[in-house]
């Protein structure tokens, strides 16, 4: 049995510890917001937070996450109101939408570590998240907006 906490809820799982975390999240626990893209850590569609870091769940084995805290797009905020989610909505960022749970999870780490990211910071943080629809300009705009919203929410930042 493997114990893992996903979005604050503890799960006891009787599955192979070598199973990719992505399969556990989607097929065992049933949270399908996180997407399968490439399976080899090249595209970023499967990004979730493992103890706050934006890991690629397609290559992360369940064994690495044992006893750790995982957050998926479903658990990023209580009411889909994380500044990045609000900004994504306001800027109409997604086209097909497939990559955007991964995009938002990566952006959330950037916003946590840098309250006022420059274009260069955004490039450095988001270069591993690919969007086939090419929504990059809107992603950049949304991250700047999310940073503003976050600073309003937390003036100290």
């Amino acid at each position, binding site marked *: 049995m493997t114990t893992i906490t996903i979005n604050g809820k503890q799960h006891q799982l009787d599955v192979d510890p070598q199973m990719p975390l992505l399969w556990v999240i989607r097929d065992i626990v049933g949270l399908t917001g996180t997407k399968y893209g490439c399976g*080899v*850590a*090249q595209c970023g569609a499967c*990004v979730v937070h493992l103890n706050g*870091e*934006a*890991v*690629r769940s397609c*290559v*992360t*084995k369940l064994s*690495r996450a044992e006893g750790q805290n995982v957050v998926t797009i479903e658990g990023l905020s209580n009411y889909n109101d994380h500044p990045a989610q609000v900004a994504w909505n306001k800027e109409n960022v997604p086209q097909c939408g497939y990559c955007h749970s991964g995009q938002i*999870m*990566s*952006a959330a*780490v*950037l916003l946590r*570590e*840098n309250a006022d990211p420059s274009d260069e*910071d955004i490039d*450095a*943080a*988001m*270069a*591993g*998240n690919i969007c086939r629809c090419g929504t990059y300009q809107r992603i950049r705009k949304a991250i700047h907006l999310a940073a503003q919203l976050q600073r309003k929410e937390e003036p100290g930042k």
Partner: protein
Amino acid sequence: MKTQVTSKVAYKGTIRTAAVISILAFIFCIMAFGLNKEIRGIHHSAPFIAVVKKDSVTSVKAFKQVYTVLMSPRCMNCHPAGDIPLQGEDSHLHMMYPKRGVDGKGVYAMKCSNCHQPVNTPGLHTPPGNENWHLPPANSKMVFQGKTAYQLAKQLIDPAQNGHKNLEKLIEHADDGLVLAGWNPGEGRKLPPLSHAQFKKAWITWLTTGAYAPKSK
């Protein structure tokens, strides 16, 4: 006759004094040598005591072997001239352009361990893994890319550029987990040109024969 006896006694006394002085000088030299090695950080307690026996020809010959390994993609790819690691047998810039960061472990959502797992991921074109995957930190970049054998040899033994490693630490570094990972590169990647045992032997030979740098030209 009396004068002859007196001069014999004086002669014997002079020899005795000279012998005592020589022995004391010998002991002092040995102590001074040992102390000097202590100061230089060479002579420490177990498990390994490095003894330097200078031999520039052997040293340079050994470094030429070391250099072939350090400049192979398995080593050089994580010792880039810029702040982006290299990738592949042709040492191109790493896809996605991940940045070094202050600690060498990446930035924001692009930290090395987000993709590089504690072990190699199975399959071709998948991220190789290690518990401690990282580049050298920003304050000590330890660049290999573009360095001549002369430049690299000088850099490796300079504490200001090698992470403050003394001779013993440099020798130990041959068995560092991330160095060893070069010989466990994951599927589809070439090994360095020497085995790890050959590399380690050449590395230690280079260091313990004086760490001479090949000529600059």
